[in-house]
Structure formats: C-alpha cells, structure tokens
C-alpha cells in the first residue's frame, strides 16, 4: 500500500512543511538532527495535531484537515517505535509486548511473538520490568511491542541507534522480511545510510522542516548532488543483481547489469534478486583490467560525470550496463588516470566491501527461504 503524506505545522521557531507520496515498502526518512523527522512521524501517528494535514495509507484516509477528518491514534493502527522507548514501566516485558493485542482484543499470534522475541534476543527479559533493562534492551522491547501490535503502518524513529552492529544485523533481515512478505508500509527514521540503503524502497530527505528530495533509494543515494547532505563517507550507489549460483567456498555469484559479481554467501536462492549498496568510497578505478589482485569484482564501465568540489576528492559516476556506479577518488588520481566523461574504466569492488548489512533481499516469493540462512 502506498503512503501519501502532506503535513504543515508550526512550532515557535520551526516550521514543518512536507508532502510526499511513497510506494509500498520501506520509506527512509533522513535528515539532520532537528530537521523535523520526529515531528512528521508524530503527526502521522496522530499524536501531534498539525495545522494542516492529509495522511492516507492505500485507500485508508487517516486524516484530512480539509474534510475535518482526523482519526484518533488508536484507530490508526500504527505501530510506532519511539525514539525514546516509552515502555510501560508498570508492566513486565512480556506484558509490554502483548499490550497491543490485549487492548485491541485481537487474537494474539503466539508464533509471531516467539519469532520476534527470538530475533530481538529478549527471551531472558520477559519477566523483568523496563526499569531494570539496559538502553539497548529497552529499545529492542519497544521494537517488539510495535511489531506485535499488528499494525497497518510501521513508524520507526531511529529504532536501531542504541544497538550494536551484531544486533542490528539480526534485526535488519527481519524488517526486510516484513517489508517483503507483508503489505505493511514502513516509515523509517535513521541517521545511518547503511540501514537506509539496505531497507528503503524510497528515501525522503528532510532539511530544516522542508522536504529536500523524495525518490527511489538508488536514485537519491547515487545523486552526487546529495552526497554532502548524506555524508561523503556514506554516499554510494545501489545496484540490482540476480543470484546465479552459490559456490562451495561460500561465495555467491550474481549477475548485475554491468557484469559478474562475487559476494559472500547471500541467503537468496539462485534466481532471486538482491539489492547491493556500493559505497562510492569502496570503488577503485583502473584504466586496464587489473592483474593479480584480491578484488574479485571488476566491472567495465564508462564515466558519465565527474563532480569535484573544494576538497581533494572527486565523485565519478559510471555507467556499467544500465546501472549507475558512484566512485569516490582523489582529484589527483582522476588527473593521473586522465579521467573524463566517456573514459572507459574498470570499477574494482572488493567482495567483502559489500558487507551483509548492505545487501537486501528483493524477491518476495523467494524471501521466505531466507529464514533458514
């Protein structure tokens, strides 16, 4: 179901004015601290009554100031993971998790509960109260609580910020499955481009309360103009590739538009489609096909644009097949190699550079088998 949002709201000294429409899947809400992300999400959840709002999920209209319609929060069926946990202090972790089905009288999904509890690693905490949990534990319970409320829209405000990499790596695939197996749109606030790129179908970029950009992830992420907003280090491109084979040495072979790619084993069977996020920083360029080198992935391509700012670096955009690849090199290298639009180059990408966190499964029918990985 697509999500259509249009919200205007004024605080003293801050004005939010954002409208966007995103297709099914995960929408990443991205923007610096104080740019209005939480305000926007609160307005969608109905916790803030904005001056002007229209929010629609699929054909469910949640709120429309023009019609004077505004569903109260509990009728919106929104699962909201708050930036600050907000667990019920008087209930145990288990009761917190079951709160949604309890108050709404919906059948509790025991299997779902077990799955979520395992994934979040909170099985040992079920009988504790939130007061005795660590910061990360609280946040995990909050995620579980929202997931188990059987929502029709998930709002997640920096859900993983307090978690370590290992835990993130466990939770992200679950969110992907949620995205792929269900029809539930997810609006995901994050500062981490890695998370965003992996999960998001669409990226909405907020700046000082204004919407700067809204579009498909690959496009927003590989827009060299947005690199400063996203953070140079995190700029990169997103490729779509099809799994062709799983090799015995733990590598998976994929076919991208630009050529053959080897990656550490991906939990998607042959024939499945995956999205790969390639950091611009991780791409090396070579004029000739390189020799005995540890990088397995060498994609031939053609330079389409070179953007360089005041710094020592330059952002080189290549076309490899019909995919766009961003490479960030030093100006000096660009000069040494004589790069210019039209130059034929080889993009060298290490297999291990495309880490698990940057790979997202994209095939709905196949995704279920993923559980066994």
């Amino acid at each position, binding site marked *: 179901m697509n999500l259509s949002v249009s919200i205007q709201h004024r605080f003293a000294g801050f004005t939010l004015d954002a409208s966007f429409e995103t297709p099914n899947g995960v929408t990443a809400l991205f923007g610096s601290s104080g740019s209005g992300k939480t305000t926007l999400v609160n307005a969608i*959840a*109905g*916790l803030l009554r904005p001056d002007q709002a229209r929010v629609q999920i699929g054909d469910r209209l949640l709120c429309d100031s023009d019609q004077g319609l505004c569903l*109260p*929060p*509990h009728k*919106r*069926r*929104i*699962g*909201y993971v*708050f930036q*600050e946990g*907000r667990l*019920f*202090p*008087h209930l145990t972790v288990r009761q917190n998790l079951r*709160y*949604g089905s*309890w*108050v*709404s009288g*919906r059948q509790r999904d025991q299997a779902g509960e077990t799955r979520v509890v395992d994934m979040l690693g909170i099985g040992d905490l079920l009988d504790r*109260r*939130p*007061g*005795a949990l660590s910061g990360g534990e609280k946040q995990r319970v909050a995620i579980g*609580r*929202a997931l188990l*409320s059987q929502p029709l829209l998930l709002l997640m405000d920096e859900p993983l910020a307090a978690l370590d990499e290992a835990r993130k790596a466990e939770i992200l695939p679950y969110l992907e499955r949620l995205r792929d197996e269900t029809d539930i749109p997810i609006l995901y606030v994050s500062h981490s481009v890695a998370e965003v790129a992996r999960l998001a179908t669409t990226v909405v970029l907020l700046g000082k309360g204004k919407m700067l950009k809204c579009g498909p992830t690959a496009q927003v992420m590989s827009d060299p103009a947005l690199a400063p907003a996203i953070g140079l280090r995190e700029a990169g491109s997103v490729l779509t590739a099809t799994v062709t084979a799983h090799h015995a040495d733990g590598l998976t072979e994929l076919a991208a538009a630009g050529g053959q790619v080897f990656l550490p084993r991906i939990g998607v069977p042959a024939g499945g489609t995956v999205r790969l996020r390639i950091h611009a920083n991780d791409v090396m360029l070579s004029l000739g096909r390189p020799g005995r080198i540890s990088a397995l992935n060498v994609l031939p391509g053609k330079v389409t644009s070179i953007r360089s700012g005041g710094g020592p670096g330059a952002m080189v955009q290549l076309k490899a097949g019909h995919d766009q690849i961003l490479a960030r090199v030093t100006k000096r290298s660009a000069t040494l190699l004589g790069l210019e639009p039209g130059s034929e180059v080889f993009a060298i990408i290490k297999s291990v550079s495309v880490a698990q966190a940057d790979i997202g499964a994209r095939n709905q029918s196949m995704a279920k088998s993923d559980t066994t990985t």
Partner: protein
Amino acid sequence: MDFLSPEEWTAVALSLRVAIWATLVALPLAIWVAFLLARRDFWGKQLLNGIVHLPLILPPVVTGYLLLLTFGRRAPVGAWLADTLGLVFAFRWTGAALAAGIMGFPLMVRAIRLALETVDPKLEQAAATLGAPRIWVFLTVTLPLILPGIIAGAILGFAKAMGEFGATITFVSNIPGQTQTLPSAIYAFLQVPGGEASALRLVAVSVVIAMAALIGSETLARRATKRVMGA
C-alpha cells in the same frame, strides 16, 4: 472485651463501616473528578474545583447544616432520593458515610489529581498507538501509574472519615447504634467533667485502627511506587 462497653464496640464497628463505605464510594468519584480537573478543560471547571474544596474551607458544622438542607428528609434532594431509590440519609449511618465521604472528598481529589498531573502523557500516547481506546488507556496505563496517588487519597479519606465529627453530628445527629460514630462518642465524653479518661480510651481505639490502615496503605503504596518507578 472489657476495655470497651458494648455500646462503644458498636460505635467502633459503625465508625469502621462508615469510613470504609465513605472511602469506597467516594474513591471512584474522586478519580473521575480528579481526571476532569487534571485533564479536561470545560466551562465551570474552576467552579467544580471550588465546590470540591468547599468542605475543606467551610467549618464542618456548616457543611453538616448544608447537608441537612440538601439531603434531609424534607429537603428536595433527600426526598427525591428516598422516593426513587429508597436511599435515606437522614439519621442513618448512610448519612454519616455521606458526610464523611464529602468531608474527605477534597483530600482524595487532590491526591489523585496530583498523581495524574505527573503521569507522562507520552506513555498514554504510546498506548494509543498500540490500539488502546481512551478508556483502555486510562484503565491500563493511567490508573496503574497513579496508584500511589489513589492509595494516598484513599488513606486520607479513610483517616478523615474516622475523625470526622462536626458535619456528621450536625447532619445525622448521634443515635447510638445508628449514627454514633467514635468521634461523636469521644465528643460526648469530653463534654462532661471527668469524662477525659473514657474519651482517651476511644481515642486510642480510633488511633489504632487508623494506624493499621495507614501502615497497610504504606505497604501497598510502596509496592505501587516501586512498580511505577521501575526496578
């Protein structure tokens, strides 16, 4: 027991009954009024607030007198209640309970309201996003969180009811076995020279009962606070 005469035991039992009923009946109402005062804005809010505090401000005799003028047999409300619900307050223990409840009401409302005002609305919002309708939010989140306040209100109401005298005796007089509560009996003893010792005995009983209730409530409240503050 020889410590108290049978009549005095009757007064003790009656006082207990009056205090318990007054507290139990007034409590839900106090919660509701506290909620209105803490959370709603409506026309006449300050008026309601004032009326709630009235029994505190007025000398108890005046309150008793006003009760008599309102809930007496001949009084409009009293007559109506007697006719329709068969509920008679005048010269009955129910009247004593009404007086005690009304005298304790401002104390209950304040305690509960104070607790309500410190509940973090963010938790209630969270409950709403999880699909809880307003009333459920109140029952499952707000109410447990204000439990310490409710307990405090209840014990204040109970203690007040155990000690209330002026409004009670003015409203329902002192009919042994029906409306003679401990404070009335104590008052009577204090009116006659040499009655101090007897009064003291009853005071002791009254204090023991109230202390037991107090300690019980402290235990409950501590538990509730612990739950709410987490740990």
